[in-house]
C-alpha cells in the first residue's frame, strides 16, 4: 500500500498546525509585544532576538499561519467559484506560503 499517494495530508497538517499557532500563540504574542512591553509591564530589549529559541519561536509564529492562510484561502476561493482554476490557485497559495517561509528564515538568520 503506497501511503504517500498524495501530499494533501501534509498540506492539511501544516494548515491545522498553523491554525493552532494562530489561535493560541498570536494572541499571547500580541499581549506581550503589543501591550506588556510597550506599556512597561515587562522589560524588553532587542537583545532577546539573539536567542535561538526566540528566533525559532518567531519562525514557527510567522511561517505556520501562512500555510493556514494558503489552505483556507485556496479552498474558499474554489468554493466561491474558482474551482476550474483550483490547481494554479493552490500552487499560487502554497507557493506564497513557501516563499514566506523562506523569507522568514532568511530574515531571522540575519538578525
Amino acid at each position: 500500500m503506497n501511503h504517500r499517494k498524495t501530499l494533501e495530508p501534509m498540506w492539511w497538517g501544516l494548515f491545522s498546525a498553523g491554525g493552532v499557532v494562530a489561535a493560541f500563540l498570536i494572541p499571547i504574542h500580541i499581549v506581550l509585544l503589543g501591550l506588556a512591553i510597550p506599556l512597561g509591564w515587562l522589560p524588553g530589549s532587542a537583545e532577546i532576538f539573539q536567542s535561538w529559541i526566540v528566533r525559532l519561536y518567531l519562525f514557527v509564529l510567522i511561517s505556520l499561519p501562512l500555510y493556514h492562510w494558503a489552505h483556507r484561502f485556496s479552498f474558499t476561493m474554489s468554493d466561491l467559484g474558482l474551482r476550474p482554476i483550483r490547481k494554479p490557485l493552490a500552487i499560487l497559495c502554497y507557493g506564497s506560503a513557501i516563499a514566506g517561509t523562506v523569507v522568514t528564515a532568511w530574515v531571522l538568520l540575519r538578525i
Partner: protein
Amino acid sequence: MSERTVSLKVTRYRPGQDSTPTAQSYEVAYPDDWVVLDALNFIKDHVDGTLSFRWSCRMGVCGSCGMMVNGEPRLTCSAFLREFDSQEIRIEPLAHFPVIRDLVIDMSGFLDKLKSVSPWIIRDTEKDPSEGEYLQSPKQLDAYHPFTACINCLLCYSACPIFGLETDFIGPAALALAHRYNEDSRDQGSAARWNAINDHNGAWQCTFVGECSVVCPKSVDPAAAIQRLKVDTAKQWVRSVLLPWGQK
C-alpha cells in the same frame, strides 16, 4: 381531531414527458398527526397515482423517504405537517442528486462510494466459531458506536455544499462509515480503506462546513468522523514519511 389544509407544491419530473422538472400543487386536508409522507401517500392513493417517491418503514429507520422539505433535507416520515407555519410546503427531490422521476433520486453514485470504503469488518484471519465471540470492552464499543446509526438516508449529502459543487466527493456518510469500521477493535481493514479516504475526493475535499451533522436524523456526526479521519491520516502520513520501512 381537528383538520387543517395545506398546499403541497411538489416537484414533478416524468422522463420522456417533461423536459425539465415542474412544480405541481396539491391541496390536502390533514389531521394533527400527519407527517409529510402521509400527505404524499394520500395524494398518491386518492388524487394522482402517477406521483412517484420512495418510502418504506414510516418510522425513521429505513432511510428511503428523504426529500427537500421547504428547502431543507428531511425524512418526510418524521416531518409533521403541523410544524410548518406556511400555507404552502415545497417538496423537492434531495438536492445534488440526479433525479430518476418526480421525487426519486438516483443513488447509484453513493452506493459505489459506499462500496469503495469496504464498510464491513475485515480480518486477516477469522477465529473458529468454537473459540467464541470477539469480545469488546465498553470503551472499545464507544469508539465506533455513535457512527453505527447511519441509515444511508443521504440527507447529509444534500446538506453538504461541497458535494453540491464536487459530486465526486465521497461524502459524509461514506466517510463516517469508513471511520466506523476503522475504529472497530475487531477490524483489521484500515489499509484497504486508506486510498478512498486519503484522496482529494476523500476526506481532504471536506472543509468542515458541518451541515451534515446538523441535518443527520440519527445524530451520526459525520463532520466529527471526517475530522478524526483527517487527523489519523495526517499522522499516518507523517509516520510513513519518517519510517517508510514501517509501512504496511
